[in-house]
């Protein structure tokens, strides 16, 4: 088994039942993320979920060099909004890409956050995910 899967399977299994009983929201506030803080990780993209209502990226990464890599979940807005606000595409970031990610961390201490900026190490190309950036003048 790949090392990162050891991490994924237990939390999927343990949380699956609990989550099934909860209502899920498609259009929600984001204050579960601490927008006053910013965390940076470096790692490798494992999965890209280019889906409505929210795009998500799983990154196997570390906060500090030398740490044991762990899986992090990055949440974003919808594909349509990412295209308009951040110049994304379905293939902008792909599994296997080495990246750094700046994000607002979850307040509950779990390994996840609201992505602010993801940078491809190979090229320096980066993408942001600020939904309000669509209001910039002369975006077209």
């Amino acid at each position: 088994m790949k090392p990162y899967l050891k991490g994924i399977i237990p939390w999927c299994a343990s949380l699956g039942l609990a989550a099934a009983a909860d209502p899920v929201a498609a259009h929600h506030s984001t204050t579960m993320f601490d927008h006053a803080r910013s965390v940076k990780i470096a790692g490798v993209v494992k999965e890209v979920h280019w889906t409505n209502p929210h795009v998500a990226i799983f990154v196997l990464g570390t906060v500090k060099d030398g740490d044991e890599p762990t899986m992090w979940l990055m949440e974003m807005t919808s594909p349509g909004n990412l295209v308009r606000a951040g110049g994304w595409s379905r293939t902008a970031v792909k599994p296997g890409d080495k990246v750094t990610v700046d994000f607002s961390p979850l307040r509950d201490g779990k390994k996840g956050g609201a992505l602010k900026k993801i940078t491809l190490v190979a090229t320096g190309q980066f993408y942001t995910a600020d939904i309000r950036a669509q209001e910039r003048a002369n975006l077209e």
Partner: protein
Amino acid sequence: MRHRLRAMLLASLALAALVRAAEPAKEKPVINPPPAAKDWADLARLPDWSGVWNPKITDQDAQAKTNMPPWTPKAAALVAHQLAEEKAGRPPPLFVNCLPEAMPGWMLVTHNAMEILFTPGRVTLLGESDGNRLRRIYTDGRPHPDDPDPTFHGHSIGHWEGDTLVVDTVGIRPQAFIAISEAAGVPNNGDMRVIERMHLAGKDILHVDLEVIAPKVLTQPWKTTRIFFRQRARKFDIVEGVCLEGYHVEKTDKDGNEIFVYTPHNVGGNRIAPE
């Protein structure tokens, strides 16, 4: 005595029948007649609302603080609680399980784009989310049904006053939120009416002036203007937005078929983050 009662009953029934016969037969109006060439040509006189319209979210943010609906005390208490929870990092989910933001929530707090289509006798709003986020606004002169089935977007009839589309909407589900943000809002609880005036306020700015009349939760009608803008160079098309898609992951099954498998989510609607 019994005979007299029966005679009176028969007489009153006969009278009722006579009254009914005297009423003009109430005919159901013809709806969706086949459009004539003139109906298509008339569309050319309408203002240009084509393109992809995005909500001005920063104005939604501002109005959540500056333009509070005139809530009843009970509704105000709920909103105060929701705002406190959101501030504490526990945002209450309003729009759960991919149910639509509905009316007037869609117009008030959406973060997603929409497009507007004109066809004879009708204006159609299509939203880039929920898979079935659409409003049909009938402009063919029909009235509301007497007793419409309650729906998420209600029954809308509209007419043009110059370049302004005036829309009247009733028959909205009582569960539909009057929302001031994605975390704060109150179900309208029934008998709501929404009146909108949609018009261009600039070359690429659309204003939706709303009046929300909801006697169960508002002490008086509430007015607000919501702003939508378009990027006219049209580098961006509206895209499909099936809400439930993200609650699944793509897998290939043992027979080689590409399938969706449910993936767990937390109460906030996000995928579950690793511990």
